[in-house]
């Protein structure tokens, strides 16, 4: 019964990062894209905590950083959702493919 080491955690976080990126690239619904961004941010949080716990256990930079990240993510999400709502008002949809008037 071994306990998970740094690399397991990093693996998870990296996987999470790429899952998030994948979601961002593939999903058409803006809200879902936003959620996948959240996944990316959470993978970062895991990174910080893992590094803090396994590599640099004697100070708390990582923890604090992750707390700040969560806060900022919330703020970001708030603004983003406000924007998306406005987009819905003008486009009658929150599908990313309906908002492609600006190009070339």
């Amino acid at each position, binding site marked *: 019964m071994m306990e998970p080491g740094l690399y397991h955690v990093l693996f998870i976080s990296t996987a999470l990062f790429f899952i998030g*990126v994948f979601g961002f690239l*593939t999903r058409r619904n803006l809200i879902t894209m936003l959620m996948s961004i959240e996944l990316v941010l959470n993978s970062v949080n895991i990174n910080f905590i893992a590094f803090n716990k396994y590599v640099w256990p004697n100070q708390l930079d990582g923890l604090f950083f992750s707390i700040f990240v969560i806060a900022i993510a919330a703020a970001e999400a708030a603004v983003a959702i406000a924007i998306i709502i406005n987009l819905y008002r003008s486009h009658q949809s929150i599908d*990313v493919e309906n908002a492609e008037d600006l190009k*070339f």
Partner: protein
Amino acid sequence: MNEFLQIQLLGIFSLGMNLGWALVMIPLLPLLGFLLLGLFGKKFLKQSAGIFATLLLAASAFLSLHTAYGYFFKYGKSEGIYQKIVPIQFTWLQFSPGVSIDLGILLDPISVMMLVVVTFISLMVHVYSLAYMKGEERFPTYYSFLGLFTFSMLGLVMSSNIFQLYIFWELVGVSSFLLIGYYYDRPSAVAACKKAFIITRFADLGFLIGILILSFYGGTLDFNTLIEKLTSTDSTEFKTIVSASFMGISALTWALVLVFIGGAGKSALFPLHVWLPDAMEGPTPVSALIHAATMVVAGVFLVARLFPVFSMSEVALMVVSIIGIISALFAALIACTQTDIKRVLAYSTMSQIGFMMFSLGVSGQGGESGLGFTAAMFHLFTHALFKALLFLGAGSVIHFIHSNEMKDMGGLRKHLPITHITFLIACLAISGVPPFAGFFSKEEILLAAYHHNATIYWIALATSGLTSFYMFRLYFSIFWNKEHIAHGEAHGEGGFVMMLPLIVLSVGAAAAGFIPFGEYVSADGKALESVFHLQFSIAPVALGLAGIFTAMWMYKKQNNRPDTIAHSMNSFYKLAYHKFYVDELYLFVTKKILFNLIGKPAAWFDKNVVNGLVNGTGNFTLFISEKAKGFQSGKVQQYAIYFLAGMIGLAVLFIYIWK
């Protein structure tokens, strides 16, 4: 500037005030005339412009006579040799130490002789034109151009520096251009003046390169120094220029031949003669001055000026004599067939210049062998007189019947008595009938040729026969033959003003032969006693008379002998009549080769290739940017893909490859 002044003054004082100023004024007076008439003539002087210019030129002519007297009889000679005096010289443009264009005046027998000839003939022409050009709209312009020409010609003959000579060489070229094109609204005149300028310019290219070579090896442009360096066989300059060779021919020969090409162009020698007949488009007095008496002999003068150097190179002299004799014969043949009287005179001019040239070619430096040189100069002198006379006479004929064509003439001796007499004298002179001027000079030429080269002598003899034939063909068909009094409004001969020059010149043409020319002008400056062999002069005179009588037989009365003879040698006659198709050859070269084979491709290349490259670059850039617009697709997720791709690309690049 200050330097220029002081040198000039110094030169003048060194020779005594009056002479110095006299010398300077000789060319400057005509120049003054040119400037004044050119700037203010139209407004202020109008018809009086002619008088003004004539007076100026009379002064200049007097000064040059005074100079000639002084040179030949006072200070020119020291211990039996006529010195080359350079009273005035100042640096005009310094190229490199030693090599510089100096403007100056060089007095030696030939230049002084030319001074007299130029000013005298020019004066005659000025007087003549007073009547001939009366009422022309651009009368002042005409006289200002005459002034310009006279100035340039005087500058040419007085040059002390080969580049100075080149400068005035170009200037006489342009003034002849202006005067030929005087009737600017005649397309033929425009074509003629362009032709004259371009062909002489082409020849000048040779002259220029020749100068470059001479200056490079001689290390100077000054005539005296140059001649002195290149004639003393032990000087380093001479050694290098002879040793340096290109295509197996020594640089000296190259230089001289190239210089001679320049001379040939100006003197209308074969094959550069085509411009001279066309140049007859100019006013007749101009033809008399420029294209008979003075400018066209500039080539002869050039060779004579550089004669000591020429005499160092056999080949060069041979080229000179061959070209000379060819032109003499060739022109004489054509002259027999032409019907435009001025063209006949033009070809005869060319032929006579041929005489002078080969006589220079057969001459040697100094002593008895220098006869050719003296003869050439002598012939130049006499020829100037009688050829000017001929042209002026032709002018008065044309003035009378307003046509150049023989067929419109005939039987004019009653209408134009004075012209008739003077013209006859001139014809006798040019045909070498004793005791007229032409006789003596031609005798000497033939003698020189005889001593030197038999073939040349025989050809020359034949040519002199032809000369008398075509001259008298001209004479008879103008003044005798059948009369077309269709040109009836017989307003007699154009007044005294027009006759005066004819009379004066005819006196010259008759008497000039008795001048003991050799005493004054010779290759080495020593007096050359002209020996006179009676038995030798039989053949030429006989031939001359034969020619005269043939002409009389054919042309005195209207008959069909000319046609029958022309038919009997049909093809050759045609050939000569069409001037041996040289003009057509020139036309081919310029139109087909210069324009179509070089000019057009150059223009095309520039338009399409060079320009195309520039435009192509621009269009290519635009094309790329058009193709690349797809990246900006408007899809935020694609943007993300490029973003991540770029990120990963950088990571891979910098972690694994570009460390």
